[in-house]
């Protein structure tokens, strides 16, 4: 197969191996296609990589842990080295966690690597999704991959939660108790669902082995399969790229998979794993030996779930109890169901379908491989920020007791503030973000039309002073003018030329309303004509023209309606 390999012994061996493989698999086709496949470069593209590499770290450290962990609720009497618990009865799961921490050399390190990696895994997924969302990378043809990513997020939450509960300590046991309370609250089938999950009454002895299977087989298996699909689609569709000189919707500008990205991405795996190892070495996480084995009675103040569960915890804390209602003789605990099920659905559901909603509002059927600068999609950016803000309010609510003790505030005041904040903050954040986006776009226009302030003051013959502006170079300018303005869709009138009402007008009108909501308020990029006009104004010279020019620029930069 290879004819150009150098005739060194290694070269010969490599060639022989390649030949052997190719004759049996035809792998040459894949190597030819993939070896020099280009990937664009940007720091934010590494967020997804962090998610992938922390997942691999989870697999490696997880395999280590399974060699010593005993997924069983069987009662044992502890006789290990941790004196505080010697002679007490506990579950085999908790006892084996203690053994992992105290007796298995490197066991504590792997436990801490595993836990930190899980926190980073979910943080990386969330920030990766933020990057994809705010840059519009989910647009055609990548809607499927957005949905797959969304499923991966929920699977990641499931993996995190099922693993968190396995050590069977007091803290995670109370987490399960909360889960049980939530499940029991589900109308009609709640108690049966609770029995289904726990194999009978809470806490039971069935859950730990069941969770173990879910945690080490079911969820990681699904994640692995979907990650494969996710990456396969990235290869197939080629990576998106940020706009810039030489980058178009029809090309990929970047570095080849082999050798540049083999080294960079491969190296980055070691960096991610290495940073997690550094955290595990120096920062203690989940010292379960201080909490003790699960017992329904004890609890400690200031207990916090892992960060990705805080928003659910916060929602549960914020909801006033009055929402629980009794219908006839049936109890409907809306005080649990709304924060536990409705709020997460309202926050996450629209995000899952957002690519389809935006495509509907835009009416755009083209493929998009160039990313948006977030400012150039003000509605999307503002919506994403408002979702993040409501998430943040709930995270704060999930830590309201910590806030109260650390800042010496009244817990009740914090809760009431956040109850209002839940409704008010996202609105404010939406409006402010949209304004900021529009302002940044106007700033871009101004820069393109007038150039950078040079700091050089010139006095005209008339005695007037002006500052000289340096025009942008073509690359600086291109980044600010390359995007297409998106305008609300136009629809055919309600009646045709003969005055007959058109079928489907109502649906079209609804769509147009949505489209207006998205795109009515906008700032359009500078056109070459505007640019030329601005240059001409500048060129005529004289301070008066200059001043006129500034006002003219501000006018065109103002919000276009319709």
């Amino acid at each position, binding site marked *: 197969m290879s004819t150009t390999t150098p005739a060194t012994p290694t070269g010969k061996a490599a060639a022989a191996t390649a030949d052997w493989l190719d004759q049996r698999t035809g792998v040459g086709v894949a190597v030819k296609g993939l070896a020099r496949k280009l990937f664009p470069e940007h720091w934010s593209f590494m967020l997804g990589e962090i998610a992938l590499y922390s997942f691999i770290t989870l697999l490696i450290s997880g395999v280590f842990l399974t060699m010593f962990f005993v997924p069983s609720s069987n009662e044992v009497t502890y006789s290990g080295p941790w004196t505080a618990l010697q002679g007490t009865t506990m579950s085999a799961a908790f006892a084996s966690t203690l053994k992992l921490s105290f007796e298995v050399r490197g066991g504590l390190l792997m436990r801490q690597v595993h836990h930190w990696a899980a926190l980073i895994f979910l943080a990386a997924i969330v920030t990766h999704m933020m990057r994809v969302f705010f840059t519009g990378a989910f647009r055609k043809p990548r809607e499927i991959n957005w949905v797959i990513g969304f499923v991966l997020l929920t699977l990641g939450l499931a993996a995190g939660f099922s693993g968190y509960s396995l050590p069977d300590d007091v803290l995670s046991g109370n987490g399960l108790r909360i889960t049980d309370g939530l499940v029991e609250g589900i*109308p009609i089938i709640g108690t049966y669902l609770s029995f289904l999950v726990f194999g009978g009454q809470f806490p039971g002895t069935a859950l730990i082995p069941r969770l173990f299977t879910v945690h080490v087989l079911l969820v990681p298996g699904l994640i692995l399969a979907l990650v494969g699909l996710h990456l396969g689609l990235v290869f197939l569709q080629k990576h998106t790229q940020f706009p810039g000189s030489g980058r178009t919707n029809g090309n990929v500008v970047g570095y080849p998979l082999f050798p540049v990205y083999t080294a960079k991405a491969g190296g980055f795996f070691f960096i991610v794993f290495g940073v997690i190892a550094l955290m595990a070495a120096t920062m203690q996480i989940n010292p379960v030996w201080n909490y003790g084995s699960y017992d329904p009675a*004890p609890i400690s103040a200031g207990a916090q779930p892992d960060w990705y569960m805080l928003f659910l915890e916060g929602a549960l804390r914020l909801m006033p109890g009055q929402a629980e209602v009794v219908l006839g003789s049936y109890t409907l605990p809306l005080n649990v169901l709304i924060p536990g099920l409705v709020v997460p659905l309202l926050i996450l559901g629209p995000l899952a379908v957002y690519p389809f909603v935006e495509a509907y509002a835009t009416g755009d059927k083209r493929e998009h491989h160039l990313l948006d600068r977030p400012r150039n999609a003000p509605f999307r950016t503002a919506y994403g920020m408002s979702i993040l803000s409501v998430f943040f309010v709930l995270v704060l609510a999930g830590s309201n007791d910590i806030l109260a003790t650390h800042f010496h505030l009244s817990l009740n005041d914090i809760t009431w503030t956040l109850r209002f904040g839940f409704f008010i903050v996202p609105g404010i954040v939406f409006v402010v973000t949209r304004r900021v986006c529009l302002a940044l776009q106007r700033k871009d226009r101004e820069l393109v039309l007038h150039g950078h302030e040079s700091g050089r003051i010139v006095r005209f013959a008339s005695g007037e002073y002006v500052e000289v502006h340096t025009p942008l170079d073509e690359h600086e300018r291109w980044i600010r003018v390359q995007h297409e303005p998106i305008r609300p869709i136009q629809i055919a009138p309600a009646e045709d030329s003969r005055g007959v009402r058109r079928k489907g007008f109502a649906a079209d009108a609804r769509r147009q309303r949505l489209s207006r909501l998205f795109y009515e308020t906008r700032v359009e990029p500078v056109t070459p004509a505007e640019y030329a006009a601005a240059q001409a104004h500048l060129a005529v010279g004289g301070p008066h023209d200059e001043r006129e020019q500034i006002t003219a620029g501000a006018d065109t930069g103002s919000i276009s309606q319709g």
Partner: protein
Amino acid sequence: MNEIESHGGPAANLPEARASVQQVPDHFENPGLPEHTPRLGDVDPRADKRRERIVLALFALSTLGTIGVLVAYFALPTGKDVATIHRSNLWLGLGLAASLLGIGLAAVQWAKSIMSNEELVESRHPMESSPQVREAAVRNLAEGVKDSGISRRGLLKSAVVGSLALFPLTIAVPLIGNMGGTWDVSKLKHTMWKKGLRLTIDPNGRGIKASDVTIGSVWHVIPEGLDKTPDPLEEKAKAMVLVVRLDPRDVKSEQIPGASYEGIFAYSKVCTHVGCPVALYEQQTHHLLCPCHQSTFDVADGARVIFGPAKRPLPQLPITVDDQGYLVAKSDFTQPVGPSFWERLR
């Protein structure tokens, strides 16, 4: 356009700017990739040597880290106290981190400083297949459908869909049927408390004399004989109780008249919100706080909810004393304890 800028000063562009007003395009032109500038190491042999040495040093760091892990593994035993475990954890972790970061940083440094940093361009093609391919695909499918005969045999279609939809039941029904254990959900409505059963201290199980319960004190209580039941954890999760004694002048209202004994009140310790143990008692205000979601109950006012996400008061356990002066239950709770569920009032 490029011309205009290269002149710099405004006055210099005058003719071009005017000219371009007449013949401006609709869109700006993509200026194309900026010119590639070589790195110092690409042109200076000494810098080239240096960048290679950095990569070598990083790989060497990794090997040192690996050796460090091996040394730490054998030299640092994990003893009986937290200090030795932390020491072992720290040095194993630092070694691991050095070993991994050395490789990672070396590879990235190699890629960034030695491998070509000239950006390459590759073109994209539309995702959709060409019309010919699509036609062929549709043709193949149509042939297959024709071969299968499914379009002419409607019943066959329903049979396929029906049997495929039904067969998962063969696994799901036995699975789900077994997963719920006895499915006796009515157990949620009762606890092991019964008339005459002593209140005992959690966890040692000693009885509590009413005379020992002083005003303002709080007792974490389990039923007598809890550890001899077949499922002590399940029973405890329902039956755990908090006992407090109030100054009779502080009592605003009673949940069940006559259910307390000389100012001693016993309330379920299971939060009526989602079931956490309501364990934090504020003696001065008589408030019980659930640390999970901060539902706050006023013990002096029938354990009514005064703040937070719970709706219902904590159920009261009717108590009295036996002839030896120990606190005993008068009956089970008069309503189901813990979180609300659909049929709790049935």
